[in-house]
């Protein structure tokens, strides 16, 4: 069994294809969609968790690549700039998954990437603007 959080980037010409249907039907994967959006240029972005057998997962990845979809690691989409963070903690009540949490008794903010679902709420909730996203995500904001 494998469980993987990924981001799929769809070029405009395949954004209308039933990709998820194939992932479930042809590769027997469980799909948990965390977030999906399409920008004005008709490019799609889908964040999801895939689980299933290792072999099926690898076949699915190959198939997705063949379709021209870009597969990115979900865990590197949101960046916590520890050099800019003042450790106030304002983000910790806004983050819906406790990826941003307050460690006690150190009273310091910690970012657990693996829990992040790229909701991007922290980007504007941080007064010191210590949360950043990749440049290529900017068009989806």
């Amino acid at each position, binding site marked *: 069994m494998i469980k993987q959080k990924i981001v799929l980037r769809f070029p405009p010409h395949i954004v209308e294809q039933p990709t998820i249907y194939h992932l479930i039907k042809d590769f027997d994967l469980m799909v948990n969609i965390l977030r999906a959006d399409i920008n004005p240029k008709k490019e799609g972005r889908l964040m999801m968790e895939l689980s299933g057998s290792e072999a099926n997962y690898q076949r699915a990845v190959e198939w997705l690549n063949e379709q021209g979809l870009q597969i990115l690691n979900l865990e590197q989409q949101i960046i916590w700039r520890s050099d800019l963070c*003042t*450790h*106030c*903690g*304002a*983000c*910790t*009540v*806004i983050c819906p998954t406790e990826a941003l949490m*307050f460690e*006690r008794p*150190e*009273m*310091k903010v910690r970012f657990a990437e693996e829990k992040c679902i790229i909701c991007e709420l922290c980007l*504007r*909730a941080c*007064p*010191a*603007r210590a949360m950043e996203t990749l440049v290529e995500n900017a068009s989806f904001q």
Partner: protein
Amino acid sequence: MKVNRSIEEINSKIKSGKAVILTAEEIIGVVEEKGAVKAAEEVDVVTTGTFGPMCSSGVFLNLGHPQPRIKLGEAYLNDVAAYAGIAAVDVYLGATALPPTDPTNLKHPGDFIYGGGHVIEDLVAGKEIRLEATSYGTDCYPLKKIETSFRLDEINEAILYSPRNAYQNYNVAVNLGEKTIYTYMGILKPKMGNANYSSAGQLSPLFNDPLLKTIGMGTRIFLGGGVGYVAWHGTQHNPSAKRDQKGLPEGPAATLALTGDLKQMEPRWLRGLSYLGYGATMQVGVGIPIPILNEEIMGYCAVRDEDIKAPVIDYERAYPQREGGNLGLVSYADLKSGSISVQGKKVPTASLSSYAGAREIAAALKEWISEGHFTLTEPSIKLPSADAGISLKPMPQRDPDKGDGTL
């Protein structure tokens, strides 16, 4: 008093490297173990710290005279409006000032990505700052327009002068409404989804000298990573606010006006902030040393988070409408635990003031004093305290053409 120590005695111990200095956190266990008298005999100074957003902060700058000369009318620093209604090339830049082009809350909630606090942070960081200014021109100041840039080390003076810093206690903000609100207390989720507070509690300067027995005009302090001074009591100073038996106020009370030479400060402790839907401001690092003159002062410095209470206020209606009242008092120990109970509901808490930063400041100040180059000062005058009979006035609101009816 069983212990009597003068500032002079403390300073001679500091200079000879014999002074005993603890932070406001470290002293708590010592007083609990040994009692205030014994602790006062052993400890000379307690250091405090706070690192929170402080909107009433800003800098006076003298930019030097260009050739030909100009009397600055409208002045912008990195597009942010500075106040030029003083002498020719003097300006005041406030932490919450914005560029005239900022969309503010036209698209609510606005981002307020760059304001006065950010300019001050960039200035202290040694970055190049753009100046654009216009003027009406006079015989003595003929220039009508200037565009140039400068760095901090190229101008004559840069004096941080903040009319209100280091608030003694503050509100805990919640939202009783049905929609998310965007305030200077951060983002508040509906139906009391979160409670935000802003004080270092037991480390905060004015909780360790609640009745202003040692802190006064001229007190030397840690300010923005450099050395600063208490200039006056702060605006909205409300020392006569309701207090408990230990002298601790149950809501916002005393405040301080602080000043210091910006050129020896650090950008780490003067941080520009963007509060979604509210505006720009600045996070300021302040640390004040408390001289242990006697066991009474030591007793105040032993204050613990569980002793200090703050009022929970609804920022959806009660605060903006100035209706008064609160939803109960909670302790800083509860606030720092991660959740509080308000009217039977468990509410997650978050701080806007950095406790880790406050700790670092108290430790830095302790080190400065230990090294012997930061000595303590006798205040030149005391600040109004609880017995001053000050009451906070609201803004008079009436028909300005009729006045208040008196001659």
